[in-house]
């Protein structure tokens, strides 16, 4: 038997008596632990190491208009227990600094830099406190997520020269790549320091697609913001829509009809399917195995046409809505879906059999871009990449939502080499699991309504929401404002957690393997850069 939620809290209060205040939220599985800057590092490292709770997100919020402080929230997720411990500290404007927990918990690395850029609060003791989100073209002292910064501010465009890290020595040369790439991919800038074909060091500059998404959320009524949520990332639209709707439904205190839960689950798994199969095609393309990529893209097309038939959009946009879903899946459509998926299962099996029997392809996949389990755990890697390194993290299991409590499925964690091959294998297995989940949903769902109405949002309520997207666990944190608006909507995408792992998998590999390794992680830029 595991430790119960209360046991954890009791241990915490006795250990840190007098320095923490524990407030239960109106939501059972979210426990807020307020403390001071002085005690922060102790408490966080205690929760992280003793409870084995991983850092799921860090959120900063400008609450000066409410209580004169900025607040920073550290969200830890307890293992084997659907509970989040949310440690929080106040930071004043006069003393805009906070202790960095990165030396103890490396997963905090990017969050702290992000907070520094967006709120102007300095993480003291951070090993690498450079700017992350705002490129050098932004004027100094621009902090977009502070409340006194207007979303429409027109800033002058400055010339920037941010230095890159490089390795120097005889025979070492530098290869710059991007941000406008040779392929049709999202923009990032990479600098390889290489000797011949072998990479010694990689420095990446991202956040080119920073669109101010989180700031725009704060300007929209909650009903419109749904459409923004769907556009955080093109290819995880259903996940982001579900995450947003769940957050709103939680703060409003409404449950959705069971049928809607099943339909959402079907959509989320369809999203995983077209992504995973498309990614496998992409990985084949990266390994110059064009037969695999052609078939992969072909099957993905069938799935996207199916998406369009069900939702009216090839990326599943416009179907999931606050309180449920907008359209039903009738019997004819259901039959069509089930038949198509049965065909795809066979088609896909034939494709992967050919792939894994091809020694030229296997040679490229195996042992390439290895991510050791310890590195993955330390950096807080999530999703397919974590599972391929043997870490069984999956929000559908750890924190069930939609109809995932009612269906049965396996999470593959037995390919634990952490190489490109393992990441392909995990995806292949998950394709079958997704189809299995969809079939179960159709069997189990009963007739009934597909939407409940949500009207008024209570102001200043906070809630977490989580979804396992095709790329991994998405975490959202919401705080409502008066007049049905959002005070803050924080989006923590899986790619944000996984990007810092990439440079660790590159050294020792050859330059042509970089696109392959990158594709095997299938990181998204848009939902990282926001």
């Amino acid at each position, binding site marked *: 038997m595991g430790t119960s939620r209360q046991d954890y809290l009791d241990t915490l209060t006795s250990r840190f008596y007098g320095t923490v205040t524990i407030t239960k939220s109106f939501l059972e599985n979210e426990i807020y632990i307020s403390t001071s800057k002085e005690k922060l590092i102790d408490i966080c490292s205690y929760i992280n190491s003793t409870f084995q709770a991983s850092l799921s997100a860090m959120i900063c919020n400008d609450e000066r208009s409410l209580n004169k402080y900025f607040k920073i929230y550290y969200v830890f997720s307890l293992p084997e227990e659907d509970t989040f411990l949310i440690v929080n500290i106040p930071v004043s404007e006069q003393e805009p600094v906070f202790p960095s927990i990165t030396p103890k918990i490396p997963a905090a690395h990017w969050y702290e830099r992000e907070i520094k850029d967006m709120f102007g609060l300095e993480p003291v003791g951070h090993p690498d406190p450079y700017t992350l989100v705002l490129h050098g073209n932004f004027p100094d002292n621009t902090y*977009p997520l502070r409340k006194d910064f207007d979303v429409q501010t*027109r800033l002058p465009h400055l010339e920037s020269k941010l230095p890159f890290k490089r390795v120097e020595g005889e025979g070492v040369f530098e290869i710059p790549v991007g941000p406008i790439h040779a392929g049709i*991919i999202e923009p990032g800038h990479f600098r390889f320091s290489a000797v011949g074909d072998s990479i010694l060091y990689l420095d990446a500059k991202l956040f080119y*697609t920073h669109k101010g998404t989180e700031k725009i959320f704060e300007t929209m009524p909650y009903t*419109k913001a749904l459409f923004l949520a769907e556009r955080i990332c093109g290819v995880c*639209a259903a996940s982001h829509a579900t995450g947003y709707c769940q957050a709103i439904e939680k703060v409003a205190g409404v449950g959705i009809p069971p049928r809607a839960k099943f339909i959402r689950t079907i959509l989320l798994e369809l999203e995983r399917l077209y992504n995973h199969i498309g990614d496998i095609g992409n990985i084949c*393309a990266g390994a110059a195995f064009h037969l695999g990529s052609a078939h992969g893209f072909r099957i993905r097309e069938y799935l996207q046409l199916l998406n369009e038939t069900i939702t009216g959009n090839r990326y599943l946009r416009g179907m999931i809505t606050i309180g449920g879903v907008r359209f039903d899946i009738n019997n004819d459509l259901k039959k069509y879906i089930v038949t198509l998926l049965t065909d795809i299962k066979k088609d896909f099996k034939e494709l992967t059999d050919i792939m894994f029997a091809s020694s030229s392809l296997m040679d490229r996949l195996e042992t390439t871009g290895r991510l050791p389990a310890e590195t993955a755990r330390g950096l807080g890697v999530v999703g397919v990449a974590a599972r391929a390194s043997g870490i069984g993290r999956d929000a559908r299991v750890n924190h069930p939502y939609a109809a995932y409590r009612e269906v049965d499925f396996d999470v593959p964690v037995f390919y634990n080499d952490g190489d490109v091959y393992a990441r392909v294998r995990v995806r292949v297995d998950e394709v079958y699991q997704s189809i299995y989940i969809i079939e179960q949903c159709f069997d189990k769902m009963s007739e009934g309504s597909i939407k409940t109405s949500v009207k008024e949002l209570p102001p200043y309520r906070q809630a977490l929401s989580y979804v396992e997207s095709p790329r991994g666990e998405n975490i959202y944190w919401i705080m409502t404002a008066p007049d049905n608006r959002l005070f803050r909507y924080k989006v923590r995408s899986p790619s944000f957690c996984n990007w810092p792992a990439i440079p660790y998998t590159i050294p020792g590999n050859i330059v042509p393997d970089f696109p392959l390794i990158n594709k095997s992680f299938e990181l998204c830029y*848009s939902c990282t850069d926001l």
Partner: protein
Amino acid sequence: MFTKFQKSFQTGVVTSSYPYEKEPAPFRFRGRIEIDNERCKQCNICVDVCPTGAYTWIEQDGKRYLQLSHAKCVFCGICEEMCSYKAIAITNSFELAATHKEDLLTKAGFDTKESVEALGKKLNEKIFSVFKRSLHVREVDAGSCNGCEWEFVALYNSPVHDLQRFGIDVVASPRHADCLLVTGPPTRNLETALIKTYHATPEPKMVIALGACAGSGGIFSNCYATKNGIDNVIPVDIYIPGCPPRPQAIIYGFLLALDRVRK
């Protein structure tokens, strides 16, 4: 080896026949929006609910009309759902591209006397006369959500759409390109890269703005980190509305683009 051939033969030809033949979008697909100004009671609900501010009121001959910009629309469908007077109809027509933003107002698409099928037959001919058999495209992501990219990848890489059958190819460098296909609002962090790419492309060149973001900033407009459409940064020849535009809608945009270059 045998299994590889077997798989390919069994699969057969999967390429779509658009635009040589009509290929209607699925029933639920949300495309061109039509407004019935007779039915409209001017209740303003569409203006209120539209997430991108695509609706405005205009005065013409002393009367007030509802006007919609397809360049701004993200095709969420909420306006049609909310209108109690059935004055807004979302059709499933996806042939929306236009050479001028004004053409995307109220009634999108350009008024062609020719049917799309006829246009399709002329495509190879046109490419031949203008760019001598081929059109080389460089795709530039100026901060998209990745949706528009995936659609272009689907168009280019997937055997179902196979863009190369029209003699259109994607090149690795803007220096080899005749055409830039740009997505994204664009973002501030990519503005410089976009301008540099534009200048690196040799004349004659054309620019296609792909998607709501590139056309108007879409849902990301009026923000410190974005501009309201790429035409605020570089000149645009063709707008292809959609969020994202489906592959067939992009093919239609190319048809139109080639028409324009010929002038």
